[in-house]
């Protein structure tokens, strides 16, 4: 898995940023490298994981879904039980500690579904840092409750009206803010995408998910899972889970993208399934684009997957065949949203419902020999309003 060139995973990754940002990324990399092996930093991270995030999160067996999947044993890794309701807080705690070490008093972040924005606003409150969150105007409407939560936590939410007014445009605005305020500002990036060193930093802080899941699975079942499954937007929860199993070659790594209305048109967010090599937001990866290199608008019922790019390490894992990537459509994800709620009493985030949908649509390929861990990256409370609208009459 060694990068062939600094900041690269095969031909993916890199630092495609305007010169104004390059020194800031160098500074970030140096600070991260210093913390990486630093005992005190790691202890502090552990402390907050335990005392504040609520780690370790559980590994929950799903009796009905297991029965439905031909007796395969299906578990959920319960990142929905993290404080703030998703895996996003793992990364935010880590990066906020880094920001504090770097002496940066101001955090900025982008957010799609609002989960990363809420997590960033939370750590800003915890550590007494100023916080500005950029969010596409379309998303502020879809996720109004999260906007309120961020404000409640003391953050300023800046609606972004440029471009498609979704996650990608929120990232553009956050990067522009960073360029203008690079001295006192820490850009707390939420996914394993973006320029080096973000993909590495975020994967590191999320790797606790896979580490825990592996140990819990061995303890409960006395063996490793046959498959681990996670949804992929930018790809941070999936990378966190995959990191725990990447050296266990017999464990299949499966990423599920937002399939929207299907691949026939452009109404999807499946960068790995349908994208091509390109450069977006500072890194080379698979992206959804037209022949002239313009980024395409995306669609997914889940705002958190609504992104035309993906983390470069996922692109690398796809090309090397170590992980495989598929998609779940809006309808499949909504069906999973309903099934998990009714069968298991767990309301998943619409993002995570895509990973659950994989089990429903692939049940024919599963046998009683299979042991599957699905990452439930977030809880569904934030989506209740949107789901009520979309599922009108079905509940």
């Amino acid at each position, binding site marked *: 898995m060694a990068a062939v060139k600094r900041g690269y995973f095969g031909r993916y990754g*890199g*630092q*495609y*940023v*305007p*010169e*104004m*940002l*390059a*020194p*800031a990324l*160098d500074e970030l990399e140096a600070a991260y490298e210093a913390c990486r092996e630093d005992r005190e930093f790691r202890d502090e991270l552990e402390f907050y994981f335990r005392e504040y995030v609520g780690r370790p999160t559980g590994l929950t067996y799903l009796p009905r879904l297991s029965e439905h999947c031909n007796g395969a044993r299906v578990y959920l890794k319960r990142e929905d039980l993290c404080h703030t309701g998703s895996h996003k807080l793992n990364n935010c705690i880590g990066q906020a500690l880094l920001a504090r070490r770097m002496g940066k008093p101001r955090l900025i972040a982008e957010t799609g579904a609002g989960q990363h924005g809420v997590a960033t606003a939370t750590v800003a409150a915890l550590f007494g840092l100023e916080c500005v969150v950029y969010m596409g105007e379309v998303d502020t409407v879809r996720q109004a409750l999260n906007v309120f939560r961020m404000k409640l936590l003391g953050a300023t939410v800046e609606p972004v009206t*440029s*471009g498609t007014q979704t996650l*990608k*445009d929120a990232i*553009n605005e956050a*990067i*522009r803010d960073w*360029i*203008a*305020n*690079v*001295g006192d500002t820490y850009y707390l990036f939420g996914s394993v995408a973006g320029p080096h060193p973000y993909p590495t930093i975020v994967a590191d802080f999320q790797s606790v998910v896979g580490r825990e899941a592996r140990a819990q699975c061995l303890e409960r079942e006395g063996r490793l899972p046959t498959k681990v499954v996670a949804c992929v937007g930018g790809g941070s929860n999936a990378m966190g889970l995959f990191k725990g199993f990447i050296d266990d070659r017999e464990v299949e790594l499966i990423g599920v993208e937002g399939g929207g209305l299907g691949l026939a048109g452009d109404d999807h967010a499946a960068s790995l399934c349908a994208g091509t*090599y*390109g*450069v*977006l*937001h*500072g890194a080379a990866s698979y*992206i959804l*684009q037209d*022949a*002239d*290199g*313009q*980024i395409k608008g995306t669609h997914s019922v889940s705002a958190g997957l609504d992104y035309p790019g993906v983390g470069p390490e996922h692109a690398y894992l796809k090309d090397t065949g170590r992980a495989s990537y598929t998609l779940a459509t809006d309808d499949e994800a909504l069906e999973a949203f309903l099934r998990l709620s009714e069968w298991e009493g767990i309301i998943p985030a619409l993002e995570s419902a895509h990973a659950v949908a994989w089990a429903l649509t692939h049940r024919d390929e599963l046998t009683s020999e299979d042991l599957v861990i699905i990452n439930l990256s977030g809880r569904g409370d934030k989506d209740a309003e949107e789901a009520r609208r979309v599922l009108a009459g079905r509940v």
Partner: protein
Amino acid sequence: MSRLSDSFARARAEGRGHLTIFITAGDPSLEATAELVPALAEAGADAVELGIPFSDPLADGPVIQAAGQRALERGCTVAGVLDCVRAIRARCDLPLAFMTCYNPVLQNGPERFAREARVAGVDGVLVTDLPPAEAGPWVETLAQNDLGAIFLVAPSSTPERVELAARLSTGFVYCVSRPGVTGTRDDLPAELFDLVARIREKTDRPVAVGFGIARAEHVREVCRVADGAIVGSAMVRVIAEAPDAAAAVERAAAFARELAAGKAPAG
């Protein structure tokens, strides 16, 4: 590329500043762009930077970003901009540089992009999100096509990065006046003059200052230490606020004349 270096050399020889004007290709239309460039030349611009719009630019402030979005909505493509350059070249000999992001270059094929740009009559290229560390093969491609490489140097650039950018910039060094994205400012920071001096230590190539240059007195002030000034957002705004393409050309030319007054040293 000789058009570009000649024009800087001429300004140096005449003891005056060099004025580059940035406009977004395709805003309000590619036909208007082909009219704007000769009019700007006539009005005293020494070079024009044509922005090839990208859907997700990182270094652009709101004015240029919005112009790019409008151009894309009207169907502006790399091929369309190249046609536009050919139309301009039929009418004027002003040095032209492209300013864009890497992905449109990548998808059109960097070698094909450079070759076609050269054949159409472009003299230099700045790819804003391709810093020197990522630009190795690209610099060679530009050299093979006799296109001037233009790299950004920012106030935050370390001495090593200044040196690298200065060494690789065969067209001119684009000095960013202050932290931030493109956009107009009221005043110029004192540190700018130190930065230009730092670049001068590393290269004899022309140095032009951009970002926040909006008035004739900015041009004059900048040209006291640098070879030239680059005006972007202020001009793009003038074009955007015009009611139609004809008025845009007229107002842009008038504004360029105003700015060009700043090329002469203060008497």
